């Protein structure tokens, strides 16, 4: 079991609030994607989870217990920036990991590195950015740990190796490991992750199961009889996250029950009704862009 609970996590650096009242849970054996714009607080969240940064307040619990040295032994972490020793060869890194971690599998590390086409005799400084990432991912996976925390595990990799890393993540999850990873490439998170959290300016903007979010979040679009037509009763609708109107066209982003919203539009006299699916990128963008003042658009011009 490796359930991770982040509760009211807050981390400040002087006056700067990096993470603000973050609460979410990563279920056991889940692939969890952490999304957010640059500087949103993803890396700080990882550091707090790993004890590399001390939370200002709040907590990170592993199966209900705070982080202890034994827990760290069960976590493999790939940071965003290379932590390889520049003067050491890849083979020497394998040896160092073997000495450091009881469960580290040299055979698995060699196999994974071969899959990435990485020469064990190469010094870290001779590796490209992508190959450094791949080396760190391979060394982390060879630890056969219960929890993998991967900060941008595909950065710098070509599409083939990116896909390979995703399949490694899927494989780790299939054997029961809990994987949490961040990526700027939403398409990758969309594939591999079962659940996501979107962090924006240190705060949780959205959290949930990817397929459930796609099932619930839709755009309901309709054409109003006139540009000044009032949309009575839509402002307080609990299914509508945001409402935009542009001339006679009205669009609602729903949080659930798009069909009900569509029926409401129809009852108001809107025509040309349709429900538009949103992919994770759309859902992400709606989560991090400030919602237009709903009240302004419902009353007409």
């Amino acid at each position, binding site marked *: 079991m490796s359930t991770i609970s982040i509760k009211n996590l807050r981390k400040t650096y002087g006056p700067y609030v990096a993470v603000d009242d973050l609460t979410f849970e990563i279920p056991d*054996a*889940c*692939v969890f994607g952490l999304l957010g714009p640059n500087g949103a607080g993803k890396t700080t969240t990882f550091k707090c989870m790993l004890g590399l940064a001390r939370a200002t307040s709040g907590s990170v619990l592993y199966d209900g217990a705070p982080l202890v040295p034994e827990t760290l032994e069960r976590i493999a972490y790939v940071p965003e920036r290379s932590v390889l020793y520049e003067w050491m060869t890849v083979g020497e890194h394998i040896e160092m990991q073997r000495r450091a971690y009881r469960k580290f599998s040299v055979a698995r590390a060699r196999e994974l590195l071969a899959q990435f086409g990485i020469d064990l005799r190469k010094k870290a400084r001779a590796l490209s950015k992508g190959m450094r990432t791949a080396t760190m991912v391979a060394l982390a996976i060879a630890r056969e740990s219960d929890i993998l925390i991967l900060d941008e595990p595909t950065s710098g990799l070509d599409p083939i190796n990116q*896909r390979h890393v*995703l*399949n490694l993540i*899927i*494989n780790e*999850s*299939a054997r029961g490991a809990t994987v949490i990873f961040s990526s700027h490439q939403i*398409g990758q998170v*969309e*594939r*591999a*992750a*079962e659940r996501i959290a979107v962090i924006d300016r240190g705060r949780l903007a959205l959290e949930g199961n*990817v*397929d*459930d979010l*796609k*099932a619930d979040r*839709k755009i309901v679009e309709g054409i109003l009889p006139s540009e000044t037509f009032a949309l009575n009763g839509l402002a307080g609708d609990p299914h509508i996250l945001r409402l935009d109107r542009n001339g006679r066209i009205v669009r609602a982003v729903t949080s659930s029950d798009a069909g009900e919203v569509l029926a409401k539009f129809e009852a108001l006299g809107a*025509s*040309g*009704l*349709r429900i*538009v*699916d*949103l*992919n*994770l*990128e*759309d859902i992400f963008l709606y989560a991090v862009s400030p919602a237009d003042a709903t009240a302004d658009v419902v009353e007409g011009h």
Partner: protein
Amino acid sequence: MPVVLTVDPRSGVPIYLQVIEQVKRSVALGVLAAGEQLPTVKQLALDLTINPNTVAKAYRELERDGVIETAAGRGSFVRGNGSIETTKTAATDVARDAIDAAVREAKSIGLLADDIRTLASAAIDRWFREDA
């Protein structure tokens, strides 16, 4: 296991629904025969590069819908008993969704029920001409 499934993770349609739809379609088309084994959850997840729990969810729903059955430790199979029924159910599910979408679209651009009925019966006549 000649299961050819393709999913589009970038679509707004939940991935597990895409897997369900494609398995049903494969059963309806006879690409997946009664008694045939489906890939394991892990294998399909790796083949499609999608989350294993998402595949598991699709398999659970396919089992609930009577399309497949899972034998502990042996894997998932297309249901054998009443396979004609299974095929027909699967085909009906796929067709219903397609017709639903078409009617919704026709209605949304202002067609009346009678207009849509006329169009539908013309389409049926066109596609079933040889059978008549």
